[in-house]
């Protein structure tokens, strides 16, 4: 490692932050682009499972709330792609790589939403898992990304409330509604436990090395379990993992998540991967004239 890179590493590891025009090692730029782009892709793809329920929302209020959430998430994608563009990868390229299956997006957005219970579980627990990662990103060494994360975290907090409200309405409803929630939770628990990634130790994680991430994967998962399992239990719901428990030392133990499933899903082999990418591909082409017209204004 040359001395300039060494100095850079010490700077970011000491809590230093980098601005758009600052010098940065190529590897840092490459990793930052890949990581931030994946986040942008996830925001953009993440609205599709929820979009499917806008027309089927049970009340007008829920329909409006869900529409607002979708707008928020697409807005996050716009902010994030802007950051990626400044790092050197144009938005057109990000979108093209996404629809061509060359770029990844989060595992949880490759699954179907089968019932209204899924909408609640996604808004409450998927967003809860996401906000844990995003809060840690407020300290990201790439400052423009850290700055937009403030707005993103702020808006995610509405989504969690919306999700919790949806869940509470159902667990205080009929037996059927209650079962709907439990059944959703059963299906989503596996993907939720995979969400923060494998247990790679923080000091071996290159993203932590560059301080793009400031938190290890397992640390994030433990935070999720500590924060949300008690909230699930207090509603009388069951977490579908017989080995899940909190040790006296405050550390949660659980059944090893299915890492093969995670790998297969994020490489585009999930139950809805192809269908959702096809949707994006269709709209990307169909709406090209809008982009062309507006940008020519």
């Amino acid at each position, binding site marked *: 490692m040359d001395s300039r890179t060494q100095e850079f590493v010490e700077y970011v590891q000491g809590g230093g932050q980098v601005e758009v*025009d600052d010098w940065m090692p190529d590897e840092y730029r490459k990793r930052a682009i890949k990581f931030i782009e994946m986040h942008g892709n996830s925001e953009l793809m993440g609205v599709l499972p929820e979009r499917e329920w806008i027309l089927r929302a049970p009340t007008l209020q829920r329909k409006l709330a869900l529409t607002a959430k979708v707008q928020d998430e697409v*807005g996050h994608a*716009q*902010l994030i792609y*802007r950051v990626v*563009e*400044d790092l050197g990868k144009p*938005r057109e390229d990000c979108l093209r790589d996404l629809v061509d299956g060359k770029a990844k997006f989060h595992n949880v957005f490759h699954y179907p939403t089968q019932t209204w219970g899924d909408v609640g579980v996604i808004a409450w627990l998927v967003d809860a898992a996401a906000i844990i990662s995003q809060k840690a990103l407020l300290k990201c060494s790439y400052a*423009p990304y850290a*700055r*937009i994360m403030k*707005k993103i975290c*702020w808006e995610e907090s509405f989504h969690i409330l919306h999700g919790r409200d949806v869940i509470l309405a159902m667990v205080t409803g009929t037996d059927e509604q209650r079962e709907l929630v439990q059944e959703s939770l059963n299906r989503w628990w596996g993907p939720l436990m995979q969400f923060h990634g494998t247990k790679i130790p923080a000091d071996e994680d290159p993203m932590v090395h560059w301080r793009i991430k400031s938190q290890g994967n397992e640390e994030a998962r433990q935070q999720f379990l500590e924060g949300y399992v008690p909230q699930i239990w207090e509603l009388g719901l069951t977490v579908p993992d017989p080995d899940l428990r909190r040790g006296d030392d405050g550390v949660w133990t659980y059944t090893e998540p299915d890492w093969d499933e995670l790998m297969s899903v994020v490489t585009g082999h999930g139950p809805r991967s192809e269908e959702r990418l096809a949707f994006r591909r269709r709209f990307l082409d169909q709406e090209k004239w809008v982009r062309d017209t*507006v*940008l*020519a*204004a």
Partner: protein
Amino acid sequence: MIFEVFRQERKGQAFAHAGSIVAPTAEFAEAWAREQYGRRGESEALWLVPRDAVHTVTDWADEFDLKYRRVDGYSIKARLKEARERAGTAAPGAS
């Protein structure tokens, strides 16, 4: 065109950089900034500044060692001690 967005959260507060927007004109930039940074009433005001109009300064020369302009430019401890000795006094509060 890239517009940098600065946001004021409440009256009297400083404008802080919030993000940027690509737009062909200031009118488009305004429409998108209103959606992106104002739809929940979270902003008192926005400044949209074309990135090219931002003149950045990051290098700070101090060839003349202008430390007399800073608090760390003054070391009064030793002098104060000497002054007290000459006056035969102690620091206020000390007995």
